[in-house]
């Protein structure tokens, strides 16, 4: 008799989700799906509020990447005002975005994924966490913690606080960047550069030892979407959208992010609260695409900083036009961390950063505004509509994790088919089930963002029989949270 396995909750991700595995009559995996079980409704909450409040409100979508939401929201507000913000404001926003990506990637790599990578996918679950890492390599863990601390410190210095900084809004920013702040940030750079360089070298060695995982945890052709600058280089704050296919062929160039709705559609599936975006000209599901670190490195011709450029050239050798293995999201994340540290150092010498003019003043000039930027997990769009008084009538958020939804489902399905084989008693090895979760962790999904929830984050795995009966449910104990 066929049956279904359920992994719930999926652990070491941001948010609530579960994985269900359908087994056939022979007990072999027939299919697997990733279900997001949260619902929040931020788009509805903002209706009737002044658009000036949106950056503060939207930053509450996520405690990990609030800066990304502040930036996209502020940019949508800039468009509603019809202004070009002062150079100092733009450079501060860029600095915050680099710090945001650095701290988020450090959390993903060192805290959430390193236990799998350094201790092994089959290590006992009780050891496969940062305390296991502590026993294994305390220096590595210390560096990871300090690297994230650096990113958070930059955010605190510039934004006034680490989480939900409200320093940016429509028209610019509110606080001047000071030379004392510059000096403190510069004092962190040598250690940060050293740590990320060591992690990258070690990461390359370790990741290459995971051959089956590289091959089967989400290795498939797809489109890749990301922001590039006017020269085709890696860009996080403001640029044009580029789409390439699984062989690196250009599919679309110079797309205006403000017009995203003309080339991106959103499909729905009955098993998830999260939508399934796709490239409209290709239809759904053929037009599904990936975003985030892997996609950004696939669409960018170069990084624009010396060390990251060297690493990017080497990275691109791993693919035939594009790197399609989702496991390489980890490596892409490391290269992006390096790039961010380089960019932060570079920005400290940028005279515009210290400018005194921080705001472009205007009243409402448009009724519709779109803001986009590259968030740690991929391209983020905020789209607002307002009435003549500037009160929000509608909002649409297109979140990075949402855009990877179909890819995560394909990754789980591929991993389940390759790694799950029941024992004679019908049980599955924990390490094999962990590989399904690891397939999801490649994408570092933020389900709080993508469902725009409250509560606990971990995933559940469920197994179902052909007749739909739940045969087995695997859930880790929940813990109380403060967030």
């Amino acid at each position, binding site marked *: 008799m066929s049956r279904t396995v359920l992994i719930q909750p999926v*652990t*070491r991700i*941001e948010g609530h989700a579960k994985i269900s595995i359908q087994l056939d009559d022979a007990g072999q995996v027939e299919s697997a799906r990733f279900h997001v079980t949260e619902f929040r409704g931020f788009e509805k909450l903002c209706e009737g509020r002044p658009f000036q409040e949106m950056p503060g409100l939207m930053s*509450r979508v996520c*405690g*990990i990447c609030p800066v990304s939401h502040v930036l996209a929201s502020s940019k949508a507000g800039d468009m509603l005002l019809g202004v070009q913000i002062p150079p100092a404001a733009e450079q501060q926003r860029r600095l915050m975005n680099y710090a945001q990506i650095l701290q988020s990637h450090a*959390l993903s790599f060192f*805290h*959430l994924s390193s236990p799998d990578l350094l201790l092994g996918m089959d290590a006992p*679950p*009780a*050891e*496969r*966490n*940062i*305390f296991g890492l*502590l026993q294994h390599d*305390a220096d590595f*863990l*210390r560096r990871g*913690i*300090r690297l*994230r*601390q650096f990113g*958070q410190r930059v955010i605190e210095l510039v934004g006034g606080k*680490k*989480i939900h900084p409200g320093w940016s809004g429509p028209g610019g920013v509110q606080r001047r960047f000071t030379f004392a702040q510059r000096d403190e940030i510069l004092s962190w750079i040598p250690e940060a550069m050293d740590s990320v360089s060591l992690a990258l070298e070690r990461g390359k060695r370790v990741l290459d030892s995971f051959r089956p995982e590289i091959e089967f945890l989400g290795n498939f052709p797809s489109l890749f979407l990301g922001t590039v600058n006017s020269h085709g280089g890696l860009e996080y704050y403001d640029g044009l959208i580029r789409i390439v296919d699984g062989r690196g062929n250009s599919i679309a160039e110079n797309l205006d992010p403000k017009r995203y709705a003309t080339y991106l559609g959103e499909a729905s599936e009955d098993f998830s609260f999260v939508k399934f975006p796709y490239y409209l000209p290709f239809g759904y599901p053929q037009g599904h695409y990936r975003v985030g670190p892997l996609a950004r490195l696939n669409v960018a011709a170069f990084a624009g900083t010396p060390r990251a450029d060297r690493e990017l050239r080497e990275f691109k050798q791993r693919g035939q036009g594009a790197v399609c293995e989702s496991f390489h999201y980890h490596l892409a994340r490391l290269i992006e961390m390096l790039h961010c540290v380089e960019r932060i150092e570079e920005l400290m010498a940028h005279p515009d950063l210290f400018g005194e003019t921080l705001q472009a003043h205007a009243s409402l000039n448009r009724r519709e505004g779109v803001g986009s930027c590259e968030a740690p997990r991929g391209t983020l769009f905020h789209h607002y509509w307002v009435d003549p008084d500037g009160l929000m009538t509608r909002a649409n958020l297109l979140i990075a994790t949402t855009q990877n939804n179909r890819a995560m489902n394909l990754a789980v399905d591929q991993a389940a088919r390759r790694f799950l084989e029941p024992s004679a008693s019908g049980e599955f090895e924990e390490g094999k089930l962990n590989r399904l979760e690891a397939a999801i962790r490649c994408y570092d999904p933020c389900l709080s963002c993508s469902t725009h929830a409250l509560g*606990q*984050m*971990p995933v559940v795995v469920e197994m179902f029989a052909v007749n739909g009966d739940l045969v087995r449910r695997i859930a*880790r*104990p*929940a*813990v109380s*949270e*403060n*967030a």
Partner: protein
Amino acid sequence: MRTLLIACGNCWRGDDGAAHRVLDLLGPDIGAQLRSVQQLLPELAGEIAEANLVVFLDAAIDCDRLSLEAVLEPEAPPALTHVSRPSEIVALSRALFRFKGLAFQCRIPVADFATGEKLSPSAAVFAEEAARMLLDLFGHPARWIDR
């Protein structure tokens, strides 16, 4: 003595902000470094290493009286989440950053996590009691050792 008070909780979820209320009541002149966080994250391990005394303050829905207890080593392996407990942060700090100070956890009884910035009447009373207790202890440092 370098003292660090860490208030944990979400001020927008009613009584979950009780710990932050305690810091407000103590004020900036208390002679301690004050930190407000929504949740405990590993990078705090580096920060507390510089203190001789660290007190974690948090709302507790599962108790009915104010408590101040030493933070013990984690008994079980930590859960695989992005949120940490005081015991885990302290253990990390001792192992990675050579924290040698004293660590305590102050649990403030609360009742209501509904959306909003207002504390329930009972949580407000316990927050005031916590502030008084900490003030008293700061006036008599030796009592920390006794605890």
